[in-house]
């Protein structure tokens, strides 16, 4: 049974400065020792290790920098009630889901807001586009149905911006149902006239449904908990495309939502910051949406995010953009570069595999020397993650972050080759079936490790190096397990074992028959 997640525990973040300093020191010591002190083994493998370690250190240090202080509080004026247009972006989502969101948006406790459905069903060739129009009419809210496609979700929003007049624009995905107090909680911050946008958490109310929704949400918790709270201090809130309010003036200054990138929200937020506007992240669950309910939809969503983030890295030179402050540059690069982590995971899992088959090692050291510098570093990092996330960071989240390495690699491939990736809406209803093909790389890895072990033992016996490398492989495989299980939701271990034993029995019987025939 999947545990019902605590709704707001991920927002009760805390950090300890002595712990952050200790972790930083441990990370740097580990990096320096690995890079400069340990004797080099195979130079190509060593180069790969160093690339990996540079990335890990970058991730660790930027995380620690982000969570250094998460208690930023902006000023607000509760009496401030300017005009607000509420946009609900729709492109073929089930009508009942859109209805729930539309009603909640209409009934928000705010004196001055107009709700519009941004109906892209027609251009997306979805059957229910007329149904959505009728529903809007029935609920007494506005509806913009585009007849000319372009710019995907960003284009849809820009079309609505052109046909509306509210000072501020709240945006919700079709499945993200706002709480009644959403505008009451977000608009008061706009008394700061240089505030460009306010972002709130993208909470998934179906997190308890299955392994995919659980992993998906738990991955989000780290981002919407400590990371977003830390970004607040650095005026670097990330625009996430839903559950947010944007200043019309700020949006106009950057030429509306960015349609060049499939990470339209991320890019638009960056442009708004670049023009000197400020941002705020409100750490309260003010809207509730749906996580992808099946493994295929999750993969598609992650691929889209990864493709978009890498697009930002390759298309816009984040470090040289003149309008951004240094902390903002670091934050944008740090967030976008997360989607490169799959490539580093690949390096890490390949090292034991290469050793098992070839005996090549990146560093000529006893495994215990590595343990001396690695264990303090990883223990402190882990404790920091747990503490800053209010002990909400789970093994499942880790598994989804690491197990998704293949998605990142595919996204990088697509980015490098300039392959076009269309904006696809995440399915709001679970697709049936198993998606085991999506974890073929993981299964292949397991098979190669199992095959490599006798190879290595034959070469050098049960040596500490063989055992240590095999243990590292088991470490990675163990982390893949929840991710792989999510791919096969209907997997029944008992029936699988029965099938395997039946298969083996029949194979043995055939083999015995063949032997008899030959004899």
């Amino acid at each position, binding site marked *: 049974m999947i545990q019902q997640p605590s709704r707001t525990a991920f927002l009760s973040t805390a950090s300890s400065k002595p712990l952050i300093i200790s972790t930083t020191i441990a990370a740097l010591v580990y990096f320096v020792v690995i890079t400069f002190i340990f004797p080099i083994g195979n130079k190509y493998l060593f180069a790969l290790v160093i690339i990996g370690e540079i990335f890990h250190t970058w991730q660790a240090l930027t995380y620690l920098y982000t969570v250094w202080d998460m208690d930023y509080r902006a000023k607000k004026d509760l009496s401030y009630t300017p005009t607000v247009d509420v946009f609900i972006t729709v492109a073929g989502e089930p009508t009942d889901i859109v209805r729930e969101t539309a009603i909640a948006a209409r009934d928000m406790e705010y004196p001055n807001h107009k709700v519009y459905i941004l109906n892209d069903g027609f251009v997306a060739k979805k059957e229910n586009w007329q149904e959505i129009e009728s529903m809007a009419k029935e609920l007494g809210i506005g509806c913009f149905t585009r007849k000319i496609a372009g710019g995907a979700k960003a284009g849809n929003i820009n079309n609505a911006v052109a046909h509306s007049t509210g000072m501020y624009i709240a945006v919700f995905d079709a499945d993200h149902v706002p709480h009644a107090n959403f505008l009451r909680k977000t608009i008061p911050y706009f008394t700061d006239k240089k505030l460009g946008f306010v972002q709130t958490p993208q909470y998934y109310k179906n997190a308890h449904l299955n392994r995919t929704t659980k992993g998906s949400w738990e991955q989000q918790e780290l981002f919407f908990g400590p990371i977003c709270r830390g970004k607040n201090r650095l005026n670097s809130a990330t625009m996430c495309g839903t559950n947010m309010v944007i200043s019309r003036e700020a949006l106009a200054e950057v030429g509306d939502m960015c349609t060049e990138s499939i990470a339209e929200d991320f890019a638009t937020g960056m442009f708004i910051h670049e023009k000197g506007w400020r941002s705020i992240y409100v750490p309260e669950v003010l809207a509730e949406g749906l996580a992808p309910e099946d493994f295929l939809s999750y993969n598609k969503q992650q691929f889209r995010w990864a493709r978009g983030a890498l697009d930002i890295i390759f298309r816009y030179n984040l470090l040289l953009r003149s309008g951004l402050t240094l902390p903002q540059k670091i934050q944008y690069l740090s967030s976008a570069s997360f989607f490169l982590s799959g490539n580093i995971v690949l390096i890490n899992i390949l090292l034991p595999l290469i050793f098992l088959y070839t005996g090549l090692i990146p560093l000529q050291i006893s495994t215990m*020397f590595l343990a001396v510098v*690695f264990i303090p570093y990883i*223990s402190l990092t882990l*404790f920091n993650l747990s503490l800053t996330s209010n*002990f909400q960071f*789970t093994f499942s989240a880790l598994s989804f972050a690491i197990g998704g390495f293949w998605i990142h690699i595919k996204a990088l491939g697509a980015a490098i080759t300039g392959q076009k990736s269309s904006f696809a809406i995440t399915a709001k209803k679970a697709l049936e079936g198993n998606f085991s093909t999506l974890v073929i790389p993981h299964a292949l890895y397991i098979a190669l490790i199992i095959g490599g072990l006798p190879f290595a033992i034959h070469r050098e016996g049960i040596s500490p190096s063989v055992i240590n490398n095999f243990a590292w492989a088991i470490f990675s495989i163990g982390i893949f397990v929840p991710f792989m299980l999510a791919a096969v939701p209907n997997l029944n271990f008992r029936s699988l074992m029965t099938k395997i034993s039946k298969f083996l029995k029949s194979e043995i019987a055939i083999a015995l028959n063949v032997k008899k025939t030959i004899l």
Partner: protein
Amino acid sequence: MQIYRFIKKYESAIWIVAAMLFVFALSITSFFTKSLRLDEAQSIFQTNGSMWGTIKLVVVDVHLPLYFVLLHIWEMFFGMSVTSLRSMSLLFLLASIPAFYYLGKEAYGKKVGLLLVGFAALSPFLNWFGAETRMYTLLLLVTILNQLFFLRLWKRNHTHNRAYAWIFYGLTVVFGVYTHYFFSFILFVQAIFYLIHKKTFPAKSFRYFAIVATLAAGLLGAWFYLRMITGTNDSDPHLVAPSSVDVFNVFSNFFIGFQGNTFNTIFLSLWPLAIFGSFALLSKHTTLAKQTIYFLMNVFIPIALAFIISATIRPLFLSRYLTIILPSIYILIIHYVTLYPKKMQTYVIAGLCVVLSASLFAQAFSETAPSNENFREASAYVSAVAEPQDLFVLSAPFITYPIEYYYQGQARLSTFPIWNRYEESKQIPEYSEESLISATDEWSKTYSKMYVLMGYDQGYEEQMRLYLDKNFERTEARQFSPGLNLYVYKLRYL
């Protein structure tokens, strides 16, 4: 049905008694049958005189007196046989088993307490010291009880009759500081924990803790004063400064006991799985309870202190001295294992039990276990073959303690470097080749064969062997246990 109800009702007691019986049976059938080891022989040497004689010998040595005083009294009642002497340590280990249960239960509940009992019963490390005439199981028992009463004082600060907890806590401190110096590390950790969480302790606790601390300091001060006025000798094996490998060896000793180098290295090479184990703990249930912080402090602070002292003042980094951290390590591991999902819990517990059991039986029944010191067989052999005109030389000199317990041969017993324990200074002289030449020259005039038993290499064993091989005819070489070798040389031709 009635039996089922009975078992259910007395589940904990049955489990504890079963664990105690298992430990008892294994000790009697295996560990008690092993030869006396160096440290044990030293205990016997120090305690076989009068009570005052015992104290006088202990005060010039490296340890504290409580265990030796108790052993002296034990000898008066139960005699001096190896079995009798080792029984006292076994008694402390057996008493530790229910104490483990209560500590686990107090910290994290009954399940942890019961698992801790199983862990303790299967621990090769504890079973080994349960059959050694040394203070380590007493130290274990006192440490567990001390932790138990400290936790009681803290956790039940408003609901419980505290008077008895204070009295027992104070007693464990008194016993602890006179059992082993490393016990003070536990008190240091408790002081830090108390200062951090002072508000959660009972009212007036500062006063009581101050009284206990003063008492402990006074007792240690008195002992140091006695040492100062009597002087000390230097007859113990010289240890080398510890490296990071020694730190890991402490952990491996606590799990797999004392195994061969290859097996130990392979076991330690599995450390990425421990990291995986901690990753697998990441869940919304896993917060860091205060008692967990306390136990973590009890693991890492003593290790750090022992390491720093060993690296800067005097090497004393030995896993047996760090017995004080073993209850905390076991309790933390079991606590964390019980946080895993149920299926995984079962697999991990089963896996740990398999590792512990296999290591325990290897240590109990393997002749090649590195911790074996077969002085008994070495003595018996030399007793049987050496003639009155031969010489039996022991190096390092302090292995004379176990040898003289067993040796009944006719050849004269000597040591190299030549050491007279009863001389004024009692210090073991430094090794030098000149003194070896002079000693062998002298011996050649009187004796025909020299049986040289080498053990506890103090850094000169190989040099000494090479010199003897070069200058005398070696007629025999024999190993009795890992690191205990006998070489026989012809000194002169008749």
